[in-house]
C-alpha cells in the first residue's frame, strides 16, 4: 500500500449565492493534513427549492469560492489584529462625518443576520441601509406588496397560464424545470420578449421599452402567473405596467418577481421601513460631494453598474469602506477593507425570491460568525448597542412573523407600502438616442456570471440568422461591434439564434454597451489577407 494522507472534512449546508433563486447546495471542504483545503459541491437533493439541481454557475461554485475567498482559516480563531485595525479605521471614518453624509449599501449578498446587524449600525448612525436592488424606482415602494414574493415555485407548476418576461434558460435557469412541469400539466406559456424560447408555446414580440398597454396578448386573469424580475437595470415602467394591468387585487393574477442576489428579498424586507436612496442617487451624491463615506456590505457597485466610469466616481468619495467575503473589483479601490468569511461558511438565513426563509448550517462545532461580529464591533466603536446573534435571529423571525425557521413553509407576511426617494424612471442610454450610424440594438441578458463578474464561455453575441445574412456575416468568422459614438470597438463571435431581427443579445458585460439597451453598429470583421 502506498503512503496515505490524513483527511478531515466539513460539510456546509448552504445556498448558492449566484442569484435570488435560493438553490440549496452542500459544500464539502476536504482538508488534507498540511495542505490547502479542497472544495467540492454536493447536490442537496432534499432541498425544497431545487431538489439538488444546480445551473452552470452552481456547478462551478468550488471554483468561484476558491478564486474569490480570503484565507478563511484566519476566521476560525476569531478576529485578529488586522481585522480590529480595519474596524477601528471604519468606525473613525463613520464618526467623523454627519449622518446625512454617510451611505450604507447592502444589496443582499449576505445573510439576514449580517444585514440586520448592518441596519442596527444604520440606526446608531441615524442613516438607512440602502438595498439598491429593491429600491430602484420611485414607485417601487407602492409596488413592494407585489414584488417581494407572492408565488411559490411549486405554484408555477400548477398554473394554467404563465406569462414570462425573463429568459429562464439564461437568467434563472432553475425556473426552467418548473416551467417544464407546468407545460406537461397543460399550462400555456407565453414569452414576452424578442427571442423564441423552446419552452414557450407562444412568443410575443415585445421590445424592452414597449408599453404593455399596446401588447394585446398581455391579458392576465385569475389563472395567470406572471414571472418577471427586478434588477438595477429593470425598466421601472414595465414593472408598474405589469402590476397595473394584472391588478392582482381584482384579477387575482399571481406575480413572481425574481431578484438578482441571494438575499435581495430578505434585505428588501428587513430595510423596508427606511427612506432609502437609489443607486443612481448615491452615485450622484458622491459626485456632488454630499456623500462623504460610503460603506458597502458585500455589494460591489462596480460589478453592479454597466458603466465602468462608476469606478472613477467611487474613487472620489472621501472614505470608501468595503466589507466583503469575496475579492471583487471594489475591494481594490477601498480605503478600508474588512475581510469576512466566505458565504458558504456563514451561519444564518437567507430569503429567496419566493420569500422562503432558508437556513444555512455546517457540521462545524463552532460556527464562524466573523462578518456578524465585525459589524457588531463597528457598532460598539461608534457608540451603539450591539445585539447578540441570538437576539438578532429573534428580531428577524419577528420581522417575518414566524416562530421558527422552516424552509418547507413559506411564511405569510403582511407587507405595507412605503416611500422611496424620487428618481427619474428613464432607462440609462449610452449614447444620444437617434444616432444615424447604428444598425442594431444591443440588449443584456442578465445571469449569475454577469452579476458576479465571473468568467464563463459566454463572450459571444446572439443574433438572428436573417440578420446574419442581411449584414453579411461569414460563418465561422467574427463580427465587429461599435458603440454609437464609435469610441469603443470589440470583435466577438456570434451565435445564430431564433430571435427578432435587428437585435443583439449578450450574456456578458461588454465595453461598448453602458446601458441595459444600447444602440450599436455591427459589421463583419474585415478579413485580413495573408501576406
Amino acid at each position: 500500500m502506498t503512503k496515505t494522507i490524513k483527511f478531515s472534512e466539513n460539510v456546509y449546508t448552504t445556498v448558492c449565492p449566484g442569484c435570488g433563486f435560493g438553490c440549496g447546495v452542500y459544500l464539502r471542504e476536504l482538508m488534507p493534513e498540511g495542505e490547502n483545503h479542497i472544495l467540492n459541491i454536493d447536490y442537496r437533493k432534499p432541498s425544497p427549492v431545487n431538489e439538488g439541481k444546480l445551473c452552470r454557475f452552481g456547478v462551478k461554485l468550488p471554483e468561484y469560492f476558491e478564486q474569490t475567498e480570503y484565507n478563511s482559516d484566519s476566521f476560525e480563531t476569531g478576529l485578529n489584529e488586522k481585522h480590529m485595525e480595519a474596524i477601528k479605521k471604519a468606525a473613525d471614518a463613520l464618526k467623523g462625518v454627519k449622518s446625512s453624509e454617510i451611505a450604507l449599501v447592502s444589496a443582499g449578498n449576505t445573510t439576514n443576520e449580517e444585514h440586520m446587524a448592518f441596519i442596527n449600525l444604520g440606526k446608531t448612525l441615524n442613516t438607512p441601509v440602502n438595498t439598491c436592488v429593491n429600491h430602484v424606482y420611485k414607485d417601487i415602494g407602492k409596488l413592494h406588496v407585489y414584488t417581494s414574493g407572492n408565488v411559490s415555485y411549486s405554484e408555477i407548476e400548477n398554473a394554467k397560464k404563465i406569462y414570462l418576461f425573463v429568459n429562464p434558460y439564461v437568467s434563472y435557469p432553475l425556473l426552467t424545470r418548473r416551467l417544464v412541469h407546468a407545460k406537461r400539466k397543460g399550462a400555456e406559456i407565453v414569452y414576452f420578449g424578442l427571442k423564441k424560447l423552446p419552452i414557450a408555446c407562444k412568443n410575443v414580440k415585445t421590445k424592452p421599452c414597449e408599453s404593455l398597454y399596446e401588447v394585446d396578448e398581455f391579458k392576465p386573469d385569475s389563472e395567470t402567473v406572471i414571472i418577471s424580475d427586478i434588477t438595477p437595470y429593470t425598466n421601472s415602467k414595465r414593472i408598474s405596467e405589469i402590476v397595473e394591468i394584472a391588478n392582482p387585487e381584482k384579477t387575482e393574477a399571481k406575480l413572481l418577481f425574481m431578484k438578482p442576489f441571494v438575499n435581495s428579498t430578505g434585505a428588501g424586507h428587513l430595510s423596508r421601513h427606511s427612506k432609502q436612496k437609489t443607486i443612481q442617487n448615491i452615485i450622484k451624491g458622491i459626485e456632488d460631494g454630499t456623500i462623504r463615506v460610503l460603506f458597502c456590505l458585500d455589494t460591489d457597485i462596480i460589478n453592479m453598474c454597466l458603466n465602468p466610469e462608476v469606478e472613477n466616481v467611487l474613487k472620489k468619495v472621501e472614505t470608501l469602506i468595503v466589507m466583503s467575503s469575496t475579492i471583487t473589483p471594489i475591494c481594490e479601490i477601498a480605503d478600508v477593507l474588512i475581510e469576512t468569511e466566505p458565504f458558504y461558511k456563514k451561519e444564518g438565513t437567507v430569503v429567496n425570491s419566493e420569500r422562503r426563509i432558508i437556513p444555512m448550517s455546517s457540521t462545524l462545532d463552532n460556527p464562524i460568525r466573523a462578518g456578524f461580529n465585525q459589524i457588531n464591533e463597528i457598532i460598539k466603536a461608534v457608540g451603539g448597542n450591539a445585539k447578540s446573534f441570538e437576539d438578532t435571529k429573534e428580531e428577524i423571525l419577528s420581522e417575518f412573523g414566524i416562530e421558527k425557521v422552516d424552509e418547507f413553509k413559506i411564511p405569510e407576511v403582511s407587507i405595507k407600502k412605503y416611500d422611496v426617494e424620487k428618481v427619474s424612471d428613464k432607462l440609462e442610454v449610452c449614447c444620444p438616442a437617434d444616432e444615424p450610424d447604428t444598425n442594431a440594438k444591443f440588449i443584456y441578458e442578465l445571469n449569475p456570471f454577469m452579476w458576479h463578474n465571473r468568467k464563463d464561455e459566454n463572450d459571444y453575441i446572439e443574433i438572428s440568422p436573417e440578420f446574419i445574412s442581411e449584414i453579411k456575416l461569414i460563418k465561422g468568422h467574427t463580427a465587429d461591434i461599435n458603440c454609437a459614438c464609435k469610441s469603443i470597438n470589440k470583435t466577438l463571435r456570434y451565435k445564430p439564434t431564433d430571435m427578432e431581427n435587428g437585435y443583439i443579445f449578450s450574456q456578458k458585460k461588454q465595453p461598448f454597451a453602458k446601458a441595459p439597451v444600447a444602440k450599436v453598429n455591427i459589421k463583419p470583421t474585415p478579413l485580413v489577407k495573408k501576406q
Partner: protein
Amino acid sequence: MTAEIECEQNKRVSVSREGWTPKIVMFCCNWCSYAGADGAGVARLQQETNVRVIRVMCSSRVDAVHIYTAFLEGADGVLITGCHLGDCHYVNGNEKTLVKYKFIKSMLDEMGIEDERLQLQWISASEGQQYAAFVNEMTEKIRKLGPSPFRKPEVI
C-alpha cells in the same frame, strides 16, 4: 389546445428536396484509399461530384466528433475508407476504426439516421475502379434518401 400551439413552433424545419443535391463528406486514408482515389482520377473513371474528400493519415484518425460535426453541419452522408484489414500502415489502425464504426453505427441507428448515410469501405491503392464504383453507388443511394434530417434550411 396547448399541444396544437406547440406544433406551430419549435419544430425541426426539414429541407425540401427541390433544388437539393447531396453533399457527402468522405474520409480517405493516406496510404490506400487516397491513392485509390488518385488512381480512379488518373484512369479517368466517371464519378459523381458530390463527395468532398478529406485526407487523413489513417482511417482510425476519424473520430466520432468528425462524423457528428459533418452531419450537424449539413452533410447528407459520410463515407470512411481505409486499407484492407491486415494491410494497415500502422499495424492495426483500421481494426480500431472498425470498433469505433460499430459503436457510432449503433448510435446513429438509435437516432433514426438511415443506414446508408454512414458507410465504411476498405479500398486499397490499386482499387481505383472500386473507389469510383463506391462513390457512385453511395451518391445514388443518398440521392434516393433525400436531405439529411440534421440539415438546416440555411445550409446551402
